[in-house]
């Protein structure tokens, strides 16, 4: 045990404190390399081999014909190429190579990261190990997947050739309809939500209670039920014949309104009470104080949660499937459903997922950016007054 000296008088022998860090390891970059190589081998191998099979001239193999991918099936060759690429020896090498590299990265990384002498090296070691875990996970999943019946899966979910008659115009129209449904629903919802929020925030119970009932009803029942119920309520109850598309937009707006009301309420309540007092002390009416002082601040705070609601609504538009739309009104999900029932092939669902992602990913990206900007405390944007 080293003795820590408290006096620093001349001639006092001072012992250096013990080095508790242990020897530093030189292998951090190697570990990071192992992780990257492992993951690269698995993902890169998969991609390159699939690409190679997809673009080179090939014919149906014996194996494909044996499992039933005969030439009378639409897109049989494409599916066969996917399956053969998975079964290729190069793929085997990439998978097992990736597993070996990944395991090595995990072992070295977690074994040595505590002994690294700089933060940078320690992070390299840990990152290498994490990438190794990822490589092993992906490789194992692929190994198991190709030992099953990848031909059946590929035939039903990855046979993009069957999409061709339904692409690209009907698909784009479906995407457009999805966006219209979500956008109109969100806009209507914001208007309804604002009105509801003002009612919910009233000090008078007679104004509050009905708004609460509305909000609780729409938040408490399934959206799919609301769609069906409103359609038939309008049709039979009021003998109003609106297109399913119109009814869907109305119901989405009504439903989103309930959620937006809660978002607005929380946003308004998050503004310090002193803001309202200051505005009222200047002689502003309650309405003026809301409009000039409270609301502009609240809006900035509710933009991110409202945009999140919008992303959720984009996906929920799939529920209009219960109403049965005209072909020109088909949104993404119904486009897929009718394609599947025409062709008995589920690749339409795969394409639909990609279609939703093409809309939602930019929206999610935008939300994150706006959130970051608001949080960075831009002057006059957040409540950085005090």
């Amino acid at each position, binding site marked *: 045990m080293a003795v820590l000296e408290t006096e620093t008088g001349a001639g006092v022998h001072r012992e250096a404190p013990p080095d508790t860090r242990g020897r530093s390891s030189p292998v951090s970059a190697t570990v990071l390399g192992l992780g990257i190589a492992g993951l690269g081998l698995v993902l890169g191998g998969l991609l390159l081999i699939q690409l190679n099979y997809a673009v080179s001239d090939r014919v149906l193999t014996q194996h494909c014909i044996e499992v039933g991918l005969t030439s009378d099936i639409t897109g049989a060759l494409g599916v066969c190429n996917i399956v053969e690429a998975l079964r290729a020896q190069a793929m085997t090498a990439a998978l097992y190579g990736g597993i070996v590299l990944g395991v090595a990265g995990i072992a070295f990384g977690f074994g040595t990261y505590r002994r690294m002498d700089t933060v940078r090296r320690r992070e390299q070691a840990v990152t290498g190990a994490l990438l190794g875990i990822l490589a092993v996970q992906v490789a194992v999943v692929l190994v198991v997947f190709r030992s099953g019946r990848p031909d059946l899966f590929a035939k039903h979910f990855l046979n993009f050739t069957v999409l061709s008659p339904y692409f690209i115009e009907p698909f784009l129209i479906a995407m457009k309809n999805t966006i219209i449904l979500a956008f109109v629903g969100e806009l209507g919802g914001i208007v309804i939500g604002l009105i509801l929020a003002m009612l919910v925030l009233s000090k008078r119970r007679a104004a509050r209670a009905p708004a609460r009932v509305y909000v609780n009803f729409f938040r408490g029942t399934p959206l799919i039920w609301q769609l069906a119920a409103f359609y038939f309520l309008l049709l039979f109850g009021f003998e109003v014949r609106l297109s399913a598309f119109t009814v869907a937009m109305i119901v989405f707006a009504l439903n989103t309104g309930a959620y937006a009301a809660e978002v607005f309420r929380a946003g308004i309540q998050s503004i*310090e009470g*002193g*803001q309202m*007092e*200051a*505005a*009222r*002390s*200047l*002689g*502003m*009416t309650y309405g*003026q104080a809301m409009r*000039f*002082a409270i609301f*502009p*601040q609240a809006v*900035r705070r509710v933009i991110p949660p409202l945009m999140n609601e919008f992303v959720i609504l984009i996906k929920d538009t799939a529920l209009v499937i219960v109403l049965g739309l005209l072909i020109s009104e088909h949104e993404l999900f119904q486009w897929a459903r009718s394609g599947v029932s025409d062709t008995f092939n589920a690749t339409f669902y795969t394409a639909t997922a990609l279609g939703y992602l093409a809309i939602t990913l930019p929206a999610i990206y935008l939300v994150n950016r706006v959130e970051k900007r608001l949080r960075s*405390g831009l*002057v*006059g*944007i*957040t*409540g*950085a*007054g*005090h």
Partner: protein
Amino acid sequence: MLRGVDLRMAQRDVMVIIGPSGSGKSTLLRCANMLAEPTLGKVWFEGRDITDIRTNLDEVRTHIGMVFQAFNLFPHMTALRNVTLALENVLKLDGSQARERAMEQLARVGMDQKTDSYPGQLSGGQQQRVAIARALAMKPRLMLFDEVTSALDPELVGEVLEVMIRLAGEGMTMMVVTHEMGFAREVGTRMIFMDEGLVVEQGEPREMYYHPQTDRLRQFLAKVL
């Protein structure tokens, strides 16, 4: 909070209200412009019973300025806009008139160089001076100050007190809740000492300060000094 307070103020009075926290000082002040509604009792302003529910409180409040401990500037508006907002929307002045009057008041508190700054870019003392200008721009006949220096760093207290001293000198009628005993003693024309919702002692500030009559005030003064 308040348990029976009977006070009367004349024009040009500077009434300083002191007392321990929770004694009802702020509540009393907020009753003066009805930000707090008394459950019982009445408040008169220039002969009008403003506790009468038929009173147009928004109109009454245009004559009573208030400055808060937490400044309460509108953070999404520049200093200038903070001042012109109510001039345009409450007093219905047109843009140039409002601007002119706002600049006048901002100059009065020494903030005419920072008119385009947002509150977040100003120090506490500067924010509080803008808040005072915002209240003064309405040309109020009574100003309420609610512990306006309590949230400030010690070295910024002076610049705000200076403005208030000048205001008092110009004859503004003021009600000031404060912990600044020096200010209370020197600037106040009347002092109110409150405790547990009651006015325990009132009188001439220096007299009260140097010769407190009640034990309660003696104890309080001993603690704050």
